[in-house]
Every structure is written in structure tokens, then in C-alpha cells.
């Protein structure tokens, strides 16, 4: 089981990514660097969500709470109480983990069905938005502005562009590797058993509560940490961006379009759709408001109609079909 994970870890692909990461960012214009960073943020978030949504099959829309806690709480702690942002990151992650454990417990205790779980987590997400908007400590509706990024590492500052790129790259890769590790560890097998047939899992003695809580806590803490790093890059903690249900709906979209429950599926979806959305916004945003989202929506619908199981499985199918042909022609 562990071998798979080490094999992934030793893959030469990482070396390629490392070289690209060292060479490319300084050459990119800042606009394209921004798109790359944004894509990495969503790769990390979609992969973190995948632990719960893909592997355990619990479509949680409450993740905006964890991202929002990581972003708004750590910012508020720094600005209002002078707490170092590293400590704020840890505090936010712990609180997010506790909220995640609570949601997983509610799901277990009340035996929620799929749809009930979606709706209850959506209600939690909406409640989070209302609370942040109404609570001045967290910035209320107007949000919070972080001090300028001077590159002081001890104060959780990474020096803008390139620094943020490295932080996000590390988080994205960590998030994907955690996915690979869980998929190949006993936890991953338990989660998939629970997803595919909860009663059967219970019958063979899988401790459902323990694994549901474990998955949710890992996913929640990871989302919170990414949230803190994201807000440091954005500098402005905007509740309408970071705590709204829209951010989680987008994440679920990337994960689903890419391929749910696979280690690389969500990352694939995010890498495809985020740049598409941003480039459409850049090219068309100025001409007619709404046009870029309109096209984006059409693309999403087309992609889903084309490959209802996600894009990654579709590509794998093409790839495996194309390979034998190539072998015979040689």
C-alpha cells in the first residue's frame, strides 16, 4: 500500500515541476503569474475538498466556513489583537478542524442522507456568511485590509508575486500528496467503502464515525491553512469572496469536472477551468460585463454533457485507446 505513495513521491514529474517552477515565474508578466498563483490556490482547495467530497462521498458545501475561518480569523487576530499570523494560522486551523469534526459528528449522529447533508452544509455556509457580515471583529461587510507584504517570513509575509507562488506551489503539491497518501492508506479504503455502501461498511466493522471525522478534520484544517495563505496573497480579506458559498460551489465544480475521488482529478479540473475563467475575464471583462462568465458557463455545460464522469477519466480512456495503436504501428 505504502509503495504506491513512495513511487509517486519518487516520480520524475516532480523534478520537471521544480525546474519549471524555478525558471518560469520570473519570466512571466505579473498578470500571468497571478493566473498561475490563482490556479494553484484552487488546485490546493479542490484537492483538499476531494478528501471529503470525492473519497468519502460527502458533498460538503460547508468548506467555505473553513476557508473563511483561515482567511478572516487569522487576519482579524493580527489586526485587532496583534497575534502573529503564523499563530493565527494554527488557531484558525484548529478551530476549522473542530467545526469539521462537529459537522461530521452531526452527519453520523443524525444519519443524514446525501441530499440532506448537502442542504445542511449549505445552510451552515450561508449562516457563516451572515455571521461574518454582522460581526465587526471579523471585519463585517466591508472586510479587512492586511498590512503591506514586506517579505518578512516570520510575520507570514512572502514578498508578493514569486514568494506567493512558491507558498501556493508547496500547498498545492502537499494537498495532492495528502490525497495520494490517503488513497493508498487504510483510511482511503475505509472512506471509499463508506461512500460506496455505508451499511456494508458498518457490517464488516468499519468505525464509520472515526473515519468520517478523520476525513473531515484533515480536509477542514488543510482548507483553513490554504485560506490563510490565500488572504496573505490577496492582502484584502473580502468576505464576499472568501466566506461566500460561491467559493465552495466553484471548488466543487472544479473537482467534479476534473474527476471526483481521484488523486489528480480535482487538480486537473482546477488547472483547466481557473485559467480559462481568468483569461476570459481578462479578454472580455472590459467589453461587456457578464460575457466571460456566460461563455464560461456554456463551456462548463458542454464539458459535463461531453464527459459526465469527469474529464480525467475521459482522457484516460482516450489515452489507453490510443496507446495500443501506437504500439502496433511501431
Amino acid at each position: 500500500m505504502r509503495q504506491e505513495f513512495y513511487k509517486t513521491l519518487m516520480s520524475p514529474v516532480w523534478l520537471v515541476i521544480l525546474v519549471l517552477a524555478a525558471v518560469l515565474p520570473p519570466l512571466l508578466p505579473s498578470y500571468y503569474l497571478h493566473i498561475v498563483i490563482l490556479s494553484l490556490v484552487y488546485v490546493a482547495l479542490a484537492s483538499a475538498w476531494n478528501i471529503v467530497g470525492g473519497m468519502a462521498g460527502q458533498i460538503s458545501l460547508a468548506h467555505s466556513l473553513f476557508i473563511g475561518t483561515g482567511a478572516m480569523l487569522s487576519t482579524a487576530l493580527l489586526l485587532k489583537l496583534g497575534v502573529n499570523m503564523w499563530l493565527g494560522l494554527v488557531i484558525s486551523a484548529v478551530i476549522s478542524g473542530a467545526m469539521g469534526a462537529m459537522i461530521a459528528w452531526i452527519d453520523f449522529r443524525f444519519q443524514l442522507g446525501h441530499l440532506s447533508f448537502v442542504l445542511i452544509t449549505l445552510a451552515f455556509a450561508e449562516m457563516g456568511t451572515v455571521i461574518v457580515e454582522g460581526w465587526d471583529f471579523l471585519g463585517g461587510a466591508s472586510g479587512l485590509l492586511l498590512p503591506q507584504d514586506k517579505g518578512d517570513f516570520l510575520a507570514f509575509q512572502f514578498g508578493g508575486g514569486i514568494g506567493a507562488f512558491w507558498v501556493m506551489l508547496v500547498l498545492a503539491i502537499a494537498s495532492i500528496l495528502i490525497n495520494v497518501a490517503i488513497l493508498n492508506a487504510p483510511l482511503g479504503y475505509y472512506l471509499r467503502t463508506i461512500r460506496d455502501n455505508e451499511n456494508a461498511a458498518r457490517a464488516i466493522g468499519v468505525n464509520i464515525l472515526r473515519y468520517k471525522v478523520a476525513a473531515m478534520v484533515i480536509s477542514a484544517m488543510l482548507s483553513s491553512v490554504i485560506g490563510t495563505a490565500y488572504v496573505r496573497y490577496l492582502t484584502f480579506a473580502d468576505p464576499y469572496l472568501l466566506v461566500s458559498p460561491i467559493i465552495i460551489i466553484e471548488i466543487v465544480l472544479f473537482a467534479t469536472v476534473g474527476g471526483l475521488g481521484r488523486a489528480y482529478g480535482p487538480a486537473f479540473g482546477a488547472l483547466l477551468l481557473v485559467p480559462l475563467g481568468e483569461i476570459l475575464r481578462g479578454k472580455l471583462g472590459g467589453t461587456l460585463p457578464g460575457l466571460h462568465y456566460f461563455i464560461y458557463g456554456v463551456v462548463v455545460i458542454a464539458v459535463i454533457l461531453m464527459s459526465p464522469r469527469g474529464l480525467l477519466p475521459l482522457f484516460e480512456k482516450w489515452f489507453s485507446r490510443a496507446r495500443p495503436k501506437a504500439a502496433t504501428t511501431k
Partner: protein
Amino acid sequence: MAEFLQALAQGLLIGSTYGLLALGMGLVYGVSGVVNFSHGDFISLGMFLCLALYSALALDPYVSLVITVPLMTVIGGLVYWYLLRPMVGHQFLMVVQLTLGLSLVLQNGILMVFGGQPARTPSVVESKLLILGDVVVRVPHVIAFVVSFAMAIGLYIMLRSTDFGRSIRAVHQNAHAAALMGIDVSRVQTLTFALGIGILAIAAALLLPGTPIQPAQGLRYTVITLIVVALGGMTNFVGIMLGGLIIGLSEAYGTIYLSDTLGMLLPYGIFVLIMLFRPQGLTWSSSR
């Protein structure tokens, strides 16, 4: 006491329209298992169509219904036939994502045509008031209340005693058996979706007088509708109308007796509690 009665009237009147919004979604879910996340954007579409008809022909929203209802019904039918029908049998979440894509298209299509500024559509009854003792209610709310309940009763009778209604119930109970009985399941699902969107056109006109509208409002309506449908249970028309009234009342009382924030939290809090402690009201809690 006057405050209490005022909130009661307000909550009941608004809640009835929430119930009507939810009936369409409940009907569609019952027949085809689709949870339509673009529901709220179809409401927006209905409202903006009324606005367009007012700007072009100076039609009152209530009169516009003659045009918007058939138009939205046709749009609904086309959407189901060409977009949702091919997804039958695929993952529940994929269908949800597709309707989210549709929501983007609708919302931004509206934004492209009408711009992002909040708009109002006047109606002759907009500012008329009805005074009953201490309670003052707005006439559009009374119209909404009466029409919503009339529609609910009409739908109930249609489901009970027409052939179309019987085929809807048959597909809801067991699509496979219904197909064996010679019912064209796809056709029934398409017509039901069209009917659901047509109902939204009516609900949109009922909500419109006095309400500022903007393209980004769709998600909020979707969430309210989802909550009401979930509260009411799927096929239970009485339950759905009741769910609408509960949400309407909790909004009205919450904003009067609690702070703004707590008032806005109240409907969600009530929803979560009911979902947790009275799941037997939900037909889908058993079909996990």
C-alpha cells in the same frame, strides 16, 4: 401586539410565495430526481422578462404573464430535453453541476442584457395598502397569497384527477414500472420541468411589485427554495406550502424581534434543527 400581528401577516403573505416557488422544484425533483440549482435564476429570468415587457410595451407585471408563462414553459421544456435528459442515470452531483453552469449562463445573460444596476418594475397595485385594524398589508402581497394558494390547490387537483397528473405520479412512484405501462417517461419529465419553470414565471410576477431586482439575486432564491422544499418533503404539497410559511414567518419575526444578523440566521437555524430532529418529514431521507 400590533407588531406581532403585523409580522404574522407579513410572514404568511411572503411565505405563501416561497411555497409556490418550492412547488415547482419539488415537482421536478419528484419526477426526475433533478435538484435544479438554476431555479433562482429562472425566477430572475421571469422577473426581468416582466421588466423588459414593461419597458417596451408598458405592460403591468400581472398582464405580462400572458406572454412570460408560455415563453418560460417552452424554455423549461427545451432545457430539460436538450441539457438534462442526456444526464439521466449519471451521478447526482454532475446533474447539479450542470444546473450550476446553467445558472452562470442565465445570470450573466441577464447581466449582459439589462446591466447590473438594481431595477424596479412598477405595477398599478404597487403602493396600494389594505388596512385591517392594526395591521397594514400591501395589496401585491395579498394578491400573491391568494394566487399562490389557488395555484397550489389547482396543481393538487391536476395531480389527483387528470391523466397527465396520474402519469406524473406514476413516474414519481416507479419510473420503470410506469414505462412498462406505456408511459413515455422522458416526455412526462420534460413536461413536468416545463410546468415547473412555467410556475416560476407566475411566482416571479407575484414577487415583483415593490421588489428591487438585480441579476445576482438568483442564488439567494435558489437557497430559500431548496430550504422550503427540504422542509416540506417532496411530494407533500401541504408540507411544502407549510415550509414556505415557516420560512416566511421566521424571516418576518427574526428581523422584528432580533438583531438584523440574528434575524437573518433564524430561518437557517430553524431549517437545520427541523432537518436534524424531524427528518421523517422528508421522503428522501429514506432513499440514501
